[in-house]
């Protein structure tokens, strides 16, 4: 019953626009990635290609390693002392774990949106302007105002906050805060945006807002989204990877995964037998 629903939502979403995307480049390639927390092996030999200008959804039951994998892509796991990463992850064919790679630069290119909206306890304007300011992307004044405006517009938040840019970002509603965080990520002009369950703390209306936004952003960014919600994966993504117990079980076109899963574990998960 649940699978039917998902299939229907996949069918509803399908339009000529999706089909029209030509053969695409791989923006990120992961080869034999292993991650250890102290001695515990959290990811096992992950091989995954993430295509440019597409939304890739990572799904799987809790503790399967999908967030861990996501956080490898912008080296956020570096901040965890006991975490060790093996294997190779390439962004535009350059190994992001090479010595010469600067994490500051990498994270500017690979932005991130977190599970819980986490705006800075500063004004809405400063939330957006912070990234461009530290990277020197825009001059103070009119140029910065323009960056803030366009970022908020792309995140679909401009109309709601344009009269209160000086008010604290923490005063917005949960859904608005999450769009503020997306606008903040966009403001530094990343190539890839990683989203770690961006809607799990939001109500259905706010979730719908964010999903629409993700679909619009796909044109300019490569998006990787971790989600627990399979309908959401079906609605927003073109590619889906299913993770289970630290392994990447299956990765395919979203449509294919939900209508014709090859692995029985995938089928078990999307039909709701476990997870």
């Amino acid at each position, binding site marked *: 019953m649940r699978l039917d629903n998902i299939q229907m939502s996949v069918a509803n979403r399908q339009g000529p626009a999706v089909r029209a995307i030509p053969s695409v480049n791989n923006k990120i390639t992961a080869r034999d990635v292993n991650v250890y927390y102290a001695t515990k092996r959290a990811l096992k030999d992950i091989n995954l290609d993430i295509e440019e200008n597409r939304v890739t959804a990572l799904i799987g039951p809790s503790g399967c390693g999908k967030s861990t994998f996501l956080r490898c892509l912008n080296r*956020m796991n570096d*901040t965890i002392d006991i975490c060790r990463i093996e294997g190779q992850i390439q962004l535009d064919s350059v190994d992001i774990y090479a010595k010469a790679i600067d994490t500051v*630069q990498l994270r500017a290119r690979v932005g991130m949106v977190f599970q819980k909206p986490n705006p800075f306890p*500063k004004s809405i304007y400063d939330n957006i302007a*912070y990234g461009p300011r*530290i990277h020197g992307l825009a001059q103070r004044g009119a140029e910065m105002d323009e960056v803030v405006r366009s970022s908020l517009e792309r995140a679909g938040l401009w109309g709601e906050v344009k009269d209160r840019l000086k008010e*604290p970002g923490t005063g917005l509603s949960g859904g608005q805060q999450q769009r503020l965080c997306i606008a903040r*990520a966009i403001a530094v002009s990343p190539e890839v945006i990683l989203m770690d369950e961006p809607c799990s703390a939001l109500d259905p209306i706010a979730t719908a807002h964010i999903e629409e936004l993700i679909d619009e952003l796909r044109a300019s960014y490569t998006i990787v989204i971790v989600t627990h919600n399979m309908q959401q994966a079906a609605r927003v993504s073109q590619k889906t990877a299913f993770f289970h117990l630290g392994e990447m079980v299956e990765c395919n076109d979203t449509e294919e995964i939900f209508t014709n899963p090859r692995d029985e574990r995938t089928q078990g998960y999307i039909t709701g037998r476990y997870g």
Partner: protein
Amino acid sequence: MTDLAQETVLRRSVYKSEAFEAQLRRRYRAERRFQLAGIASIAFAAVMLVVLLTTIVLNGYTAFWQSRFDVEVFFDPEAITPSGSREPAVLSAGDYPALVREALLAELPEATGRDGRRAVMEMVSSAAAYRLRDMVLAHPELIGTRLKVSLLASDNTDQFVKGHIPRAVSEDKRKVSDRQVEWIDRLTARGVLASHFSLDVLTQSNSRQPEQAGMWGAVIGSVMTMLVTLGMAVPIGVAAAVYLEEFAPKNRWTDIIEVNINNLAAVPSIVFGLLGLSMFLDFFGMPRSSALVGGVVLALMTLPTIIIASRAALKAVPPSIREAALGIGASPLQVVIHHVLPLAAPGVLTGTILGLARALGETAPLLLIGMVAFIVDVPGSLSDPSTVLPVQIFMWADSPERGWIERTSAAIMLLLAFLIVMNAVAVYLRKRFERRW
């Protein structure tokens, strides 16, 4: 279903049983006992505080009143400058006690002979003669004229006027003789001797004579010492806390450092004094008794407190803020300076001010580095010999004359006022910074 219904009935009967109600009553009694114990302890603490403060204020407020003789002084040229010269060196060598004596004897003509004159002079402070000398040096034209001058009474006279020396005991047990009592009564009745409000106890520097002693030197010494402590302990403490909390790898070395910082916070303060004595005075040869060395020693003592409080404040900043900043490409230092530290500021400030408040009231380590010396001059620089308020209190409390009691209490009042102001500032800053959320 019937099982479930039976169970519900059974459970309901349990909640209505005698035994259950008895247990319920016991629980409420235990709660009431706990609340009573809490109220009793707060009441006890409040009563103790009130007793302490009342004692200090009752003992201390009289220090702001001083007895003075308002008498007409004849600036006798014979006594001041027998040679007639107006050179400052000559003028300052004049016999000013004689002027004081003549002025008082004019009010008390029956005091004759050597004994009488000495008894009269015992009633007036030695500061009176210095006052006349300073007046003459400033205005030599006073010589040869008569002027109404207010002369400071001696400690014993002052204490008798304030009622601190009992009248009812026999003469040999009293610091004021029967004859002097009679004079004091007469001069008081005539309005010559009277108590006046005076801030001398705050604005004068220290003295051997209680009626002349003030705490301005100690106040300045305390302020300078605190500035050194603040300037040294805060940057080092906050930097150490930030490094340990945000940057340092977690390994055996940082564990050892952490344990030792916690141990240092528990080290008796006098040990820091010994450290200051052997390190700063003997080894580095820094100036003895100076606010500089005192401040450095107190900074060392305060550092663990500031580090521990700052680390706790940094730990309390939600990790999501760090991730947010890292996620858009801020460097670790930018994360700390732009986001984490501003959010931790209220906690850091509170820890700092609590540490400083402790340092302000600290005596023991300063005794060892020589800040207990008797210093009359108000310190003019960090390397000048100076003393601080708590050491001043310690020295005054140790002196025998009756006048020191009220001055000690007055100094305690000032120290408490300082501490209250500092805590108020801490509360204000906390509130102010917390509004950023």
